[in-house]
């Protein structure tokens, strides 16, 4: 079977006292051709999972396969078939844009010409700078070059570790448009991000926090599973309103959400009593609401 299969993977790192559990019993299946988003904050375990799937790290227990190949036994073959863009810029800063791309094509026994159609859309944005050393590029340009280098050997599966972190909203949008077009080429893509709003751009997402996969589903199904009545509330003094909501018996929890506060109700039948000058409306939960709710359940 192609795609990605993860069976009960756990991984810890030793600390001076005890150990840090980076991944706890992760189960996940990603079918071939899916654009899968791994969503969670720093320290959730996203990078550890990427490193295991790209054969750079061994799990303590459990197994995983990528394109039908075992990550422990078939690691040499996996390395030929996957593209990996690590979170930290890992190209050669003293080679030019063009030299980096040619280098990666060469070590995979291919040429830039052969697979140019795959990188064309992203590479044309940096082509004017092809004689510039990679170290001199801006963050957004480096990101585009790294994607080009990860794609040049026509991988079946692409791993992108936080490609949009620290990138502004415009460049983020462009990058996601590129990913959608790669998905159309049939490449399986696993991408991690700390930005919850990017969830809606994925076919399915996994919400990960402190090494646990809290939920895996389509963004719409995750929202449907929220299961509580959610109110959006706004008033003249937002800090005071927040404290008021947090103290109410009818409110399970309340938190700022953009220009509103969101209040999750304990029971849909009991609405909180608020003054007339407070604007209240029922809203559909967002992925971030789901994440917050799952975090509370898992911590509780």
């Amino acid at each position: 079977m192609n795609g990605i299969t993860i069976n009960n993977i756990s991984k810890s790192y030793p600390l001076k006292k005890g150990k840090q559990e980076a991944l706890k019993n992760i189960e996940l299946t990603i079918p071939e051709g899916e654009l899968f988003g791994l969503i969670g904050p720093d320290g959730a375990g996203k990078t550890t999972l990427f490193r295991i799937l790209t054969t750079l790290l061994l799990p303590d227990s459990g197994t995983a396969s990528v394109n039908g190949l075992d990550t422990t036994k078939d690691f040499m073959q996996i390395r030929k078939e996957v593209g990996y863009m690590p979170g930290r810029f890992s190209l050669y800063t003293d080679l030019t844009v063009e030299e980096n791309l040619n280098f990666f094509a060469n070590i995979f026994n291919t040429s830039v010409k052969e697979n140019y159609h795959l990188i064309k859309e992203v590479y044309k944005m940096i082509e004017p700078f092809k004689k510039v050393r990679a170290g001199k590029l801006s963050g957004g340009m480096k990101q585009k070059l790294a994607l080009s280098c990860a794609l040049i050997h026509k991988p079946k599966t692409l791993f992108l570790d936080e490609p949009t972190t620290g990138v502004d909203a415009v460049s983020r949008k462009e990058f996601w448009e590129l990913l959608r077009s790669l998905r159309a080429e049939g490449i399986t893509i696993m991408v991690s991000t700390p930005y919850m709003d990017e969830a809606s751009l994925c076919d399915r997402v996994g919400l990960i926090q402190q090494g646990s996969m809290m939920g895996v589903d389509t963004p719409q199904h995750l929202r449907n599973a929220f299961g509580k009545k959610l109110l959006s509330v706004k008033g003249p003094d937002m800090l005071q309103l927040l404290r008021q909501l947090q103290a109410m018996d009818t409110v399970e929890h309340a938190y700022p959400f953009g220009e509103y506060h969101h209040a999750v109700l304990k029971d849909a039948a009991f609405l909180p009593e608020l003054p007339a000058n407070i604007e209240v409306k029922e809203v559909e939960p967002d992925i971030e609401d789901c994440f917050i709710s799952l975090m509370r359940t898992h911590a509780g």
Partner: protein
Amino acid sequence: MQDRAITAEKLTKKFGDFTAVDQISFEVSKGEIFGFLGANGAGKTTAMRMFCGLSLPTSGVATVGGFDVYSENEKIKNSIGYMSQRFSLYDDLSVIENIRFYAGIYGMSSKAIRVKAEHILKGLELEAEKNMLVGSLPLGWKQKLAFSVAIFHEPRIVFLDEPTGGVDPITRREFWQLIYEAAGEGITVFVTTHYMDEAEYCNRVSIMVDGRIEALDTPTGMKKHMGVGSMNEVFLQLARKATRTEN
């Protein structure tokens, strides 16, 4: 001048023939939460460095806490706090050592530090962890501690450069609650972020495009003016106009 924390009038910074910050003018009131937004490379960091007294403008006028950015930059440094995602606390010092170190730099007395440190640690529920190395704290705690340290010496203005990057959604909100409380105590907050929902938490926001301030308003006013529903759409519309590629 009392009620103005920051003023800028045609403030400009050039590097050779490249104009990083191009005649920006605005005022930030005391106790205001001011969001300073812009695409990568729009000139935000360069502008922030001038306000922090770390870089001299090429032309224009600016004051921070009533002090002139050209001639009184040492006084500016004393009256501000600063934190960013990249640099905040020393990982290999303990919680209490970090507090003592930063407060000491700002010239606070040992006694004042002791009294206030207790108060802060209690508020953050970090009393039991005060002798732990900062590097061993979860990121969210670290960022909240970093903010408390940045305002420990009671600065008039605190500059926050992407303070919540990569932080989980619950901690991100607890962080903003700390920001609200600081503003309530009269500290002016000047903050940059890539999270557009956080732009909504600001009293006013400015959006920089190619070194200029393209828009400055309350989030509600900005959305109304552009006829869109969210700050994300406002940002995308304005930042799309950029002709400058990132520096």
